C-alpha cells in the first residue's frame, strides 16, 4: 500500500519532469539559429524540399507558437517522436532498438561500480592510517581525474591491440551466428571493457564517499555503545558503521545515475557499442537534431527510472522514512 502510493507519487513527478523536458526541447529548437524545420529534418533531410514541407505541415510551423507547442507536445505524448531522414526510420523505433544495449551496459557498470566502490571505500576506512588505505584513496583519486573516453581508448590499445585479450568493438562477434550460452558468453566478453571503463570513474566516487561516510559514522555515539557491549571490531564495522554509512551512498548513487547515462555516450562511442549513446553520437555527426532531442528525452526518462529505484531502496534501508511519508 505504502509502496504503491509512493510509486504513484514518483511517477506523477516523473511525468511532470518529462513534460518540462519536452517543452525545453521545443524552445531549444526555436532558439537555435536557422529554420526550425531544417533543424528537425537534420542536415541530410534539409535538402529534401518535400520532406521539409511535410514537417512544416505536421508541426504547424506556419502557425502561432502556442499551436506549434501543442502539436509538438501532443505528438510526443502519443509517442510520436518524428522521423529520422538519415536513418530512414521513425525515431522511436531507432531508440527502442538501441535501448537494451544501453541498459545492459549502464546496469552492469552501475552494479560493478557500486559493489567495488563500497568494498574499496570500507577497506580504506578500516585502514585509515595505513599505507594500503592511502593507496586505495590515491587510486580512487586517479580514476576520478581520468577522462572516461581516454581510459576507454587506452584500454583498447592495451587489452585489444597489444594483448589481444578482449574484443575492442561492438556487442557481439559479427557473422559468428552464435546462439544460447555461447552468445551470452560472447556478449559478456564484449561487455567487459566498456562496462569496466565506464564503472571506473563512478567506482572512484563511491570509494571516496563510502570512506568519508564510514569515518563519519564511526564517530557517532552508537559506535561507542557498540564497543561498550564488547562487540568485535569486525561486527561493529559491518553492522553499525557500514549500515549507517550506506544511506548517503544510496542517495549519491541515485544522483549519479544521470552522470552514468552521460558517460555511456562516450563509452559507447569509443567501443561502437550499439546503444542510444552511440546513436546520439551518430545523430550528432549527421546533424540529425530531431533524433538527438528524442534520445535526450529518453536518456532523461532512464535517469528518472534509476532515481525511483534508488528512492525505493533508500526506503528499505532507512526505517525512519516510513514514518515521515
Amino acid at each position, binding site marked *: 500500500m505504502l509502496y504503491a502510493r509512493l510509486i504513484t507519487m514518483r511517477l*506523477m513527478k516523473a511525468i511532470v519532469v518529462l513534460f518540462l523536458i519536452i517543452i525545453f526541447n521545443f524552445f531549444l529548437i526555436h532558439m537555435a539559429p536557422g529554420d526550425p524545420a531544417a533543424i528537425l529534418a537534420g542536415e541530410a533531410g534539409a535538402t529534401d524540399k518535400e520532406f521539409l514541407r511535410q514537417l512544416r505541415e505536421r508541426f504547424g510551423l506556419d502557425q502561432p507558437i502556442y499551436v506549434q507547442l501543442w502539436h509538438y507536445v501532443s505528438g510526443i505524448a502519443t509517442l510520436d517522436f518524428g522521423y529520422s531522414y538519415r536513418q530512414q526510420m521513425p525515431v522511436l523505433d531507432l531508440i527502442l532498438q538501441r535501448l537494451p544495449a544501453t541498459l545492459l551496459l549502464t546496469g552492469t557498470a552501475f552494479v560493478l561500480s557500486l559493489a567495488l566502490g563500497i568494498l574499496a571505500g570500507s577497506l580504506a576506512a578500516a585502514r585509515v592510517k595505513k599505507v594500503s588505505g592511502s593507496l586505495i584513496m590515491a587510486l580512487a583519486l586517479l580514476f576520478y581525474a581520468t577522462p572516461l573516453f581516454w581510459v576507454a581508448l587506452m584500454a583498447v590499445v592495451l587489452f585489444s591491440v597489444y594483448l589481444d585479450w578482449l574484443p575492442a568493438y561492438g556487442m557481439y562477434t559479427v557473422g559468428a551466428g552464435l546462439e544460447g550460452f555461447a552468445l551470452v558468453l560472447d556478449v559478456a566478453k564484449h561487455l567487459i571493457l566498456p562496462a569496466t571503463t565506464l564503472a571506473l570513474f563512478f567506482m572512484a566516487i563511491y570509494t571516496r564517499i563510502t570512506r568519508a561516510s564510514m569515518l563519519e559514522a564511526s564517530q*557517532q*555515539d552508537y559506535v561507542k555503545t557498540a564497543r*561498550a557491549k564488547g562487540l568485535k571490531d569486525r561486527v561493529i564495522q559491518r*553492522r553499525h558503521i557500514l549500515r*549507517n554509512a550506506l544511506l548517503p551512498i544510496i542517495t549519491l548513487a541515485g544522483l549519479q545515475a544521470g552522470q552514468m547515462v552521460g558517460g555511456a555516450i562516450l563509452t559507447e562511442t569509443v567501443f561502437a557499442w550499439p546503444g542510444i549513446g552511440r546513436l546520439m553520437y551518430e545523430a550528432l555527426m549527421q546533424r540529425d537534431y530531431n533524433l538527438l532531442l528524442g534520445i535526450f528525452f529518453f536518456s532523461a526518462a532512464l535517469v528518472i527510472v534509476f532515481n525511483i529505484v534508488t528512492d525505493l531502496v533508500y526506503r528499505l534501508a532507512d526505517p525512519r522514512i516510513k514514518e515521515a511519508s
Partner: protein
Amino acid sequence: MSDTILSIRDLSLALPRGADRHYAVENVTYDVARGEVMCVVGESGSGKSMAANAVMGLLPKGVRATGGEILFDGQDLLTFSEDRHRHLRGRRIGMIFQEPMTALNPLMRAGDQIAEVFEAHGVLTPKERQAKALALLEEVGIPQPEKAIRAYPFELSGGQRQRVMIAMALALEPELLIADEPTTALDVTTQAQILELIRDLQQRHHMAVMFITHDFGVVAEIANRVCVMREGQVVELGSANDVLDTPKHAYTRALINAIPSNAVPPTRAEREPAPLLEVRQLHKVFRSRGGLFKPAREVVALHDVSFTLDRGETVGIVGESGSGKSTLGRCVVRLERPDSGELRLDGIDFTVLKGDALRRERKRVQMVFQDPYASLNPRTRVGMAIAQGPMANSVPREQALKQAEDLLELVGLGAKTAERFPHEFSGGQRQRIGIARALALNPELIVADEAVSALDVSIQAQILELLEDLKQKLSLSLLFITHDLRVAAQICDRIIVMQHGRIVEQGTAEEVFLSPREVYTRQLLDAIPGRAHEPAMA
C-alpha cells in the same frame, strides 16, 4: 562491606599535544566498592569522564595512560590487550551514556540491540536472546515491552531510550556499571524516574555504580560516596553526607553554594502594578505542510496563553521540553508569529506588526539566547556584533561602536575586548556579550531563553547575578524562560508553569514553590534532584 571492585591508583592520562593542558587526569586515586554508588562530580573540562573511559578501554584517540594502574577485581586493566578488554566490556562492566538520542543505532530495533550483547559474548541461542531482551525491557519499566522490543529508536522517547540503554548495560549482570551523565539530557521528571530506576536496580543486583555527573543535586539523590574533580585532579573524596554537609575543600563549597538553592527569595517590595506586557489568549499551532498524499501534522505549541508582566518585574516561564515555553518567548520577540491572540507591549499590539513597522518597533524587546557558542557570528568582532543593532536603527557607526565599548564595560568584560573575535571568549563571557548586545538598543523588556542552561553552575551564578544587577540599574523587565526550577526560584518574582502548550499554574514565586495548587507543579517540584537533602545544603 568495603569489598573493592575497582581501584584506580595514581592514574595519569596524557592528552595529545596541542591540547590546552598536558593531562586529562593526573595522579587520580579512588576506589569503588561492590554495592555502592560512587559519584564522580566536576564541571566541564574537569576530566571526570576520562578515568571511566580508561576503565572501559574506550579512551578517545590520542589520549593515553602514562602512569598508575586501574585494578578491576585485582587485575590491572591498563596491561590488558584489546581482546581481553573486550571480553570484559558488556559482560563484567556495563556503561550508559549521556545522549540517549544518539547512543542507539538508528537503523536497528531496540530488541536486536539488546540481544547483541549476548551475541557479543556468545551467550544463549538467538531465540533465548530475544526472550531475555523482553524480560530486560520489562525490568527497566518500559511501557508495552512487547512493542518496544520491535521499535526503532526514533519511535521511542528520550527516557525510553535511556531505559533501553540501561537494559543493554544490565544484560549480562555486570559487577560494575558506569553511568556517564545519564540524566543530563532528560527532563526533570524523567530524570527523577531514571535515577530511581538506577538506584533500584543497583540495590537489587548489588552492583557497583560509578556515576559521573556535574549536578550536586543528583549527587545528593543517589551517591554513597563522592569524588570531586577539578582540572584533572581529585580535590575531595568522602562519604556523600560528609561532602554535602561539611565540604572541606573551598572548591567543593563553591560548587555546592553555586547551586541555586530552593530557598524562595523573599517577596520583593510591593510595586504599583504597571503592566508592560499583556498577553491575551495566545494560540500557536505548528503545521508540517502536507503533500498530495501526506496528511498535514499539527502540534499545538500554545493554547490560550494569557498573562501580564509588570514594569520592573521578572516573570519565570517554567516547563519541560515540549511545554511551549520557548515558543512563547519567541512569540513575544516576534521570531514566531502567533496564530491568534494579542500581545501588547505598552499598549501596542505586536501581533499585527509587519515588515518595516515591525523592524522599527522590535528593538523594544530583545532576547538573550541559550547557546553561547551559536549566538555570536564567528566572523564578527564582538564590538561590531553589539554595534550592529544601533547601526541598523540609524545610529552613526562611530557612536555605536563607542557605545558598544561602554556596554562591554558594563557587563564586566572591559572596553578593550571589543576588538576580539567570539572564539577568544569562554562560554560565560560570550553570554555576557550576548547580554550586552541585547542591551544595546535600550530595550524595555528582555526575554532570556534558557540563558544559563548551557553553563557550568559556578558560571551560572555569576550570570544570574549580572542579570539581576543590570535589571536594577537599567530598570528592565525580564521574561525568564527555563526548565530549571532551582534557577527560576533564584531570580523570579512570579512564576508561570507550562505543560503541553498551556499554562498550568501561575503565581508569585513563594506561592508556586511553597503551596503549589496543581498536581503537575508538585510533580515538577518533587522531581528536583537533591530536594530531600536541601535543608542541610542551604
